[in-house]
């Protein structure tokens, strides 16, 4: 379990980083926290020619309050965001979901953007980004693009990032004072979820319900005026539409059943949190 050989580049600025990506394209991989990438390299399941280590680019290591959005730079670790003093107030959904991301030790190095970039279908941060309607900021020598979460993550481990693009930040809309709830089922504490459910109550009392682990990417539905039975109906419909999938830990049927059980509870928790 040792990585194949690769070249290592540690740019000092975003411009340098995107220049390296432009030069190497698909052969390059961005190394941020490396909590997924290094494991893949050790298992020889990834084969980059060049690793571009962006962790020492000071400009990327920032959490910026843009007013209606919080912008989290690509080098910001999950624990740094978790320790950000305004997190609970401005991004309560992330405050609820981040403790489920890996473990203390992996959050010390794993980045918020890296988790979004990796695009695991059941991981927590992409789910939160999707439910909140957040954005991904991509930079290349060709310019800057800002994609909505659903335009970014297309499928399991698949995104619309171009090979020469660097994710410089993600932006989470501020959701102060809104009801939120998050739950997940995992085999062990800290594992990737089998099914994860996040809910956000909007200004009109409708609920945005997001689900991870049911499809290739997080799925979000708007559920109007959610009382108990409409919530159950909507969740059931969602379960049927999404179908779920089978892996070692769960069948598709079980995933649907998990969603049916968790969904209404999470909606209820979010509504009560809003009240």
């Amino acid at each position, binding site marked *: 379990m*040792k990585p194949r050989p690769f*070249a*290592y580049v540690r740019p000092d600025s975003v411009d340098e980083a995107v220049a390296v990506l432009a030069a190497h394209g698909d052969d390059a991989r961005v190394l941020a926290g490396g*909590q997924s990438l290094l494991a893949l390299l050790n298992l020889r399941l990834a084969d980059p020619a060049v690793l571009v280590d962006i962790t020492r680019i000071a400009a990327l290591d920032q959490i910026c309050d843009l007013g209606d959005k919080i912008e989290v730079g690509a080098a910001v670790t999950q624990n740094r965001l978790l320790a950000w003093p305004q997190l609970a107030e401005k991004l309560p959904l992330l405050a609820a979901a981040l403790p489920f991301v890996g473990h*203390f*030790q992996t959050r010390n*190095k794993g980045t918020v953007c890296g988790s979004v970039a990796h695009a695991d279908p059941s991981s927590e941060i992409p789910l939160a980004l999707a439910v909140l309607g957040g954005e991904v900021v991509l930079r290349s020598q060709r310019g800057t693009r800002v994609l909505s979460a659903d335009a970014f993550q297309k499928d399991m481990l698949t995104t619309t990032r171009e090979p020469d693009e660097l994710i410089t930040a993600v932006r989470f809309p501020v959701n102060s004072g809104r009801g939120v709830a998050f739950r997940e089922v995992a085999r*062990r504490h800290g594992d990737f979820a089998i099914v994860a459910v996040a809910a956000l109550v909007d200004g009109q009392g409708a609920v945005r319900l997001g689900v991870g682990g049911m499809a290739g990417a997080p799925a979000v539905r708007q559920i109007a005026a959610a009382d108990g039975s409409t919530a159950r109906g909507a969740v059931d419909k969602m379960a049927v539409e999404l179908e779920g999938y089978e892996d070692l830990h769960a069948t598709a049927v079980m995933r649907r059943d998990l969603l049916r059980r968790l969904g209404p509870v999470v909606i209820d928790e979010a509504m009560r949190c809003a009240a």
Partner: protein
Amino acid sequence: MRRIDKDQRARIRLTLNGRALSAEAEPRMLLSDFLRHSLGATGTHVGCEHGVCGCCTVLIDGTAVRSCLTLAVQAEGRDVRTVESLAAADGTLNPLQRAFQNHHALQCGFCTPGILMSFTDYLARNPRPSEADIRDVLSGHLCRCTGYAGIVSALLEAAGYRQSSESGSKS
């Protein structure tokens, strides 16, 4: 911009337990291997090399990380601390280490260095954690021997909840 070619070996300098050290390494060299085999600090253990077990946990600039998910070159210029740094020069154990001995928190001891390093970081940030917090941080480590009960007791002692139980006769 630091750049090391694929088959090139570069000299990696870092501070290990207070001492400036360096050795040559390819870019792909894992920090865990670099510490153990290039710098001879074998106290850091390797149990999975895919980031799950926590045996390899070390401090980089005070922060506990998996050294198997870190390249040696990423630690370049950093302050790295490993389990060898915990006891005093004369071998006297620090309070965290002593708590582990008091509560029989280790059997084979293979997982132990990683756990000690995680909590060296965590207790420095959060000296008075709840038991739930302690369990949450400890869940980033696998221990096959103890069933964790002794480890939790030791960490509660280290966090000041228990009198140090020097119950066992001194040995």
